[in-house]
């Protein structure tokens, strides 16, 4: 097992490298010029010379410098051109230079990362200077974690009993009704649920003003004692958590039903019934235990998907978590922040998949990894 975990961890290194490389090259090699688009966004159309100057300034600050290894060699430096060359050869030269510059930029980024420097965020710079990307993200982790932990807890507590009850009474009214409700829940998009919940139950909506619709805390929550603070948190997270939970809940309940059904049809259950054990003991002692363990594994494996889903929910409810940070970072072309965030998402997925695998082996002694 230890060797297996070690091997998995070692295999993760090229994958994580690939994750960062993919993100870096997407951002660097996007067609058009995102930096110029960003300047145009901020200050409207300015004349080409001023545009070039400020674009170069930003590139230098971000470590996004464009090198012209090939172009300078073939066409000479840009200052000496009489007019801009055209044609396929020039285009290919330029493209090759762009890829090479991105490569250099990636190596520089990686070298800095190895020294523990995640880069400075340009979006969140203050008068006292820019902020380190990793610090910005670490600030946001508890928010996203809170949402996801509450949501996972709810999924576990509700989905498993529902799924098991449906399997226990297969084909009866509870099974049919729950299957229908779960399928409907599974098909409601989170954006529709959020719209309806905010509109009818949210403060500032047009219905009952029951729940706040933005943020995680009331103003001045630091001064409250822990009980009031927790109540405030739950009150604030109620709507986003509902939006985040119901889809996964429907999925897990379906899985729970299938899992118990599989065990109820197994030979050992027939044996238990044949030797005259009471039905309750057969179901709750034998079959249920065997179906519960794979459910825990499956729950761990759904966490990465849930984290992805919370990007949308955070966007809708403007909750200052990792997802909203990513949305803002991408809009601002904040490379350091985007890179750090994707790296972190990669590590998170990796960790949960690994935990899932280990749990799976732990729950079922027959599973052995070489």
């Amino acid at each position, binding site marked *: 097992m230890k060797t297996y975990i070690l091997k998995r961890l070692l295999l993760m290194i090229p994958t994580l490298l690939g994750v960062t490389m993919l993100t870096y090259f997407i951002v660097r090699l996007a067609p058009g010029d995102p930096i110029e688009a960003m300047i145009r966004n901020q200050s409207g159309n300015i004349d080409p010379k001023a545009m070039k100057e400020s674009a170069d300034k930003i590139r230098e600050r971000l470590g996004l410098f464009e090198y012209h290894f090939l172009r300078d060699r073939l066409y000479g430096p840009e200052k000496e051109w009489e007019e801009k060359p055209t044609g396929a050869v020039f285009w290919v030269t330029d493209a090759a230079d762009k890829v090479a510059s991105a490569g250099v930029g990636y190596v520089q980024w990686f070298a800095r990362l190895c020294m523990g420097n995640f880069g400075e965020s340009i979006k969140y710079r203050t008068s006292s200077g820019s902020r380190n990307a990793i610090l910005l993200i670490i600030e946001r982790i508890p928010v996203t974690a809170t949402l996801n932990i509450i949501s996972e807890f709810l999924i576990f507590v509700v989905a498993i009993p529902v799924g098991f009850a449906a399997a226990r009474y297969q084909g009866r009214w509870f099974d049919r009704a729950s299957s229908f409700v779960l*399928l409907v829940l599974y*098909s*409601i998009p989170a954006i529709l649920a959020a719209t309806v919940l905010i509109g009818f139950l949210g403060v500032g909506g047009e*219905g009952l003003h029951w729940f706040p619709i933005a943020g995680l805390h009331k103003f001045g929550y630091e001064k409250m004692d822990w009980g009031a603070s927790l109540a405030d948190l739950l009150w604030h997270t109620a709507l986003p958590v509902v939006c985040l939970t119901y889809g996964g809940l429907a999925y897990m309940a379906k899985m729970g039903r299938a899992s118990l059904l599989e065990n109820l049809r197994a030979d050992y259950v027939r044996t238990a019934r044949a030797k005259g054990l009471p039905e309750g003991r057969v179901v709750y002692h034998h079959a249920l235990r065997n179906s519960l363990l794979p459910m825990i594994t499956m729950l761990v494996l759904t966490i990465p*998907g849930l*984290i992805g889903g919370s990007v949308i929910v955070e*966007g809708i409810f403007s909750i200052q978590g990792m997802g909203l940070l990513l949305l803002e970072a991408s809009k601002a072309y904040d490379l350091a922040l985007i890179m750090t965030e994707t790296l972190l*998402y990669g590590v998170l997925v990796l960790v949960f998949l690994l935990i899932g695998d280990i749990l799976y082996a732990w729950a079922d002694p027959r599973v052995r990894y070489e």
Partner: protein
Amino acid sequence: MSSLLPTTQSGPTVRARSYGDIVWRQLRKRPAAMVSLGVIVLLAFVAVVAPFIAGEVPIRWVENGETSWPIFRYLDNLEYAGMLAFLLVLLLPVTVRLVRVRAERAATSPFVRALFIHAAVWLTVTAVLIAVRTPERRYGFFLERVGEAQSAWFPFIPTPRHPGYESLAHRDKAPTWRHPLGTDRLGQDIVLRILYGARTAMTIGFVAVGIGASIGVVLGSISGYFGRGIDLVLMRVAEVFMFIPQIVLIIIILAVMPSWVPQLWAVVVVIGVTGWTGYYRYMRAELLRVRGEDYMTAARALGIPTWRLLLRHAIPNGMAPILVSATFGIAGAVFLEASLAFLNLVQTPSWGELLNDGRQHIMGTWWAWGSAGAAIFVTVLVYNLLGEAVRDAIDPKLKI
């Protein structure tokens, strides 16, 4: 001995049922599947003929004694291509029946042969259309000039649809006969927006999942069949895509996409290119299984070339989980596109956009968000229902 020799049979000939026939028969028994399929065909139909249902370009226009059919001049080449595609898909069973005898003589699947014929027809016609025809794009002011015409047949809901259209007099109107689903805050008819949203949803669903499934099937079969080094490399590539949540990757790509890229095609390609890993994993697992089967060994012993082995024997036998997950995948893609439009990450005529527009006044303009929400919900629901039915028809034990 004589019993081993083939004998001439009297009585009715029994045709061997293909795998597709069996699955289709199973599917026909499930009412939920048939209803879902009907809804999907209906959605595709209204998406394809949207300009005939709501819009500003008249179908027939008589002015100064001259009769013209403006809508056919105004329809885009891709709109004609869409209509043709819809027709060709509906006519597929007919072609299958027509080519059955010839296909069976050549020992190929009649379905695949019909599919190829239709694809060739579609590609040829579309290419010729794009090369030859230039659609009319000037705004004709038909609705304003209706008094000048002796006779005009408009779409069922005559309503303006052009950039910059804004009618303060007609904005936020509750449903009436003129506007069966009301109007939005710019005065645009909601039926019109739902119809064009259906186009986006259909395009996203079929094209994005088509791209994703194609990449997944090709790479998955290479990886599963050849194994070794290429499998190791491809698996790492797939892992890279699996380790970044799809939505995160899409947000990053859309953020750096320059504004001149058409938004609809950007989001279609992005959803397709980032969503191939699921199909890849299923195909790879299936080919690992198929590779060792006796019929594969037999085929290899007959000296059939590898490409033919893969195309004719291995991949068709591993398609079941791909079909099921593609059906669920369409639901997921529609979901995803609506969310992206809702968050204003793409500007497409989408249900998500309409939902976001209408949510500011949930009581006041319930028709706007209500119809958009209902449209997304119904579409996702029918694809999920169909997916479950297809899975049960193929193999209830498939874990998808």
